[in-house]
């Protein structure tokens, strides 16, 4: 019986080792997420976009500024140039060029000024921005912005949490992690049973040895 239990304890231990490592490492990183700045860092790439099904909730809309320059908003992110998009609560009510060659856009409560490449210059409370009419987005601009939106990544701490709970690996992920947790429980229980039975055996052996020694002396 004890040999069978030991064999299964070993098997369960080896099987759950990978999951224990994943759980422990991700758990530790989640605990240290703030000091390590993991809640501010984003991880992008095709795998992340695919895993999180990053499709926008609202259709992209935008304003054309003269030449071929577009200011486009998708779900509270405003894309101006190649720089990172600027967060602004929807709706985008207008965009224009400033006298000093910068770009301004607003949601009617806050105005944002950026360079032509989209680098944030400043943002300030402002409810006087002139409302303008949105333009019809050309397909190439829409596709480019959507590609950037879908590839923008997720916060590192969110990805860690989803790996920790198994959600990152699809529908089966939480079940696999649940199974790993069950294995860990079994591992602990079988360990306790083995420890207690080994103790009982040792005590019995010691008692028998003592009795044998006493009978020899007698």
């Amino acid at each position, binding site marked *: 019986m004890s040999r069978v239990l030991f064999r299964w304890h070993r098997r369960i231990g080896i099987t759950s080792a990978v999951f224990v490592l994943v759980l422990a490492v991700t758990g530790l990183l989640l605990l240290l997420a703030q000091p390590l700045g993991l809640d501010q860092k984003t991880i992008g790439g095709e795998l992340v976009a695919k895993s999180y099904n990053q499709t926008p909730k609202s259709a992209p809309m935008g304003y054309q500024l003269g030449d071929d320059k577009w200011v486009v908003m998708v779900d509270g992110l405003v894309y101006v140039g190649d720089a990172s998009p600027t967060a602004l*609560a*929807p709706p985008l009510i207008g965009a224009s060029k400033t006298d000093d060659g910068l770009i301004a856009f607003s949601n*009617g409560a*806050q105005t944002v000024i950026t360079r032509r490449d989209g680098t*944030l210059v400043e943002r*300030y*409370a402002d409810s006087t921005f002139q409302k303008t009419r949105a333009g019809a987005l050309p397909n190439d601009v829409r596709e480019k912005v959507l590609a950037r939106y879908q590839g923008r990544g997720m916060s590192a701490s969110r990805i860690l949490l989803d790996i920790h709970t198994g959600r990152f690996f699809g529908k089966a992920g939480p079940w696999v992690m649940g199974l790993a947790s069950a294995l860990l429980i079994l591992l602990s229980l079988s360990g306790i049973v083995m420890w207690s039975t080994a103790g009982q055996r040792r005590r019995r052996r010691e008692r028998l040895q003592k009795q044998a020694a006493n009978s020899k002396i007698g």
Partner: protein
Amino acid sequence: MSSVHLYKWLISALLASLLFAVSVPARADDLTAAAAQEKLLASAFQGAPPVPKTLWINKALKKDVKKILRHDYGALRVRYWQQGARTVWVLEEIGKYKPITVGIVINEGAIEKLDVLAYRESHGWEVRHDFFTHQFIGARLPKNKKLDRKIDGISGATLSVRALKKLARLALYFDARVQANE
């Protein structure tokens, strides 16, 4: 209308209202900040705020700003209002997840008023109250770029308190730079 259509309609209405609930408060916070800023400027300059000026965060400033905030400022310039020795700064810093908008009035190198114009976090809203913000009145920034007084924290609002302290130091630092350039 069949029960399936009614069910679909109800689900769509629920999702639409959820989207509305998610998107509207963010802009509502911006509107609150705009209105509160107007009020702050009116009280700081007796109803006639001057034309705003901008301070560019150049290389020298960037280094000090990073030391105060423990991260880059995030924008290339900052807007302020000035009349004589009095300046008003509206700055933002993330508490835990969302930005806290704070208006700071500085007169002759000391904080005259500090108001939380918009608080977007779900916890730590106690920092908006006068009992907390009054602690900043009269605070100055010595050469070590730390406030010249101890600001008592609020349990459960540690990050918001830290954000407000950083912004108070930043506003005093910006004010010193502006006054020095005059």
